[in-house]
């Protein structure tokens, strides 16, 4: 787990009030939604908001790619890095 992945896992735990988990309990390739961690659509909205606030991204909620970006901690980290780099350049 790299620093950004750990940061995002911690953001998930804090934002979604997962009091029974720590960031280390969420594997980077564990599916976040449905049968994986068990997050739902309200969590997706809440998480998108938290990512916007923390990393200054704009998340298009309806796009098919958003579903792919939000699949795991690893995919979220790749997405955040790409967006932040795109904004910087």
């Amino acid at each position, binding site marked *: 787990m790299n620093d950004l992945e750990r940061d995002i896992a911690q953001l998930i735990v804090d934002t979604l*009030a*997962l*009091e029974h988990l720590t960031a280390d309990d969420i594997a980077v390739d564990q599916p976040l939604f449905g049968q994986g961690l068990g997050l739902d659509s309200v969590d997706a909205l*809440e998480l998108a*908001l938290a990512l*916007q*606030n923390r990393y200054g991204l704009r998340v298009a909620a309806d796009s098919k790619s958003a579903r792919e970006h939000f699949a795991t901690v690893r995919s979220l980290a790749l997405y955040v890095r790409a967006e932040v780099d795109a904004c910087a350049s």
Partner: protein
Amino acid sequence: MIDLSIQAWRAWAPGVDSAADWATWAATPHAIVDAGEQPGCEFVPPMQRRRLSRMARIVMHAAWPLCADDEQLPFVFASRHGETTRTFAMLDEIGRGAPLSPTQFGLSVHNAIAGQWSILRGQRGESVAIAGEADTFEHAIVEAATLLDEGAPAVIAVVAEERPAPAYDGWIDDVPFSYTLALRLSRANGGPGWRLSLDENNGDAAPVDMPHALRFVRALHDGASLDHPWKTRRWTWQPIA
């Protein structure tokens, strides 16, 4: 006039939880210091529990044992002020120009706790969420009585208030501390119970200085009648043998 039997009841306030706690409190009712304590609700799985506000936890803690897992009972949720904590958090976000939390928004509606009860307990029947004035407790009883009249074998009725943020001082003055009273009610059918009557208040009776639901908890212990005037309404509780 409504005749009801109280099959079971549970109440909660900070540090006052068990039947023995309430018997002690009822003997000498006093203001309870509210330091934000909340029930643990370990019987709710963590992924569901994280969505429960303090007020929802208080309600679930009190009401949960009153309904068996294999029965379907109508549910009445009554609160004059509702989820002030969630509302205040959203007002703060609006004030800062920040986006609203979808979770706070979705669960701030008055029937959210009734909905959570339905989901967590697998209750597919009727539920009611009401907000009245200082006599919200009596209006909850009226709602429960109408559900019993429609044939429900019993009704779970819960009155709950949470001590609001200090910003509400001067606006909300009738929640000295967070509390709930959960009742499992059925028709009296000639057996022992309580009779609730409503008359017109001719104006010479002043409102009482303690939440009606808590006065009723005291009456459950000492069996005394209650007189609850509020504006044009005058509610009377009398024990029936």
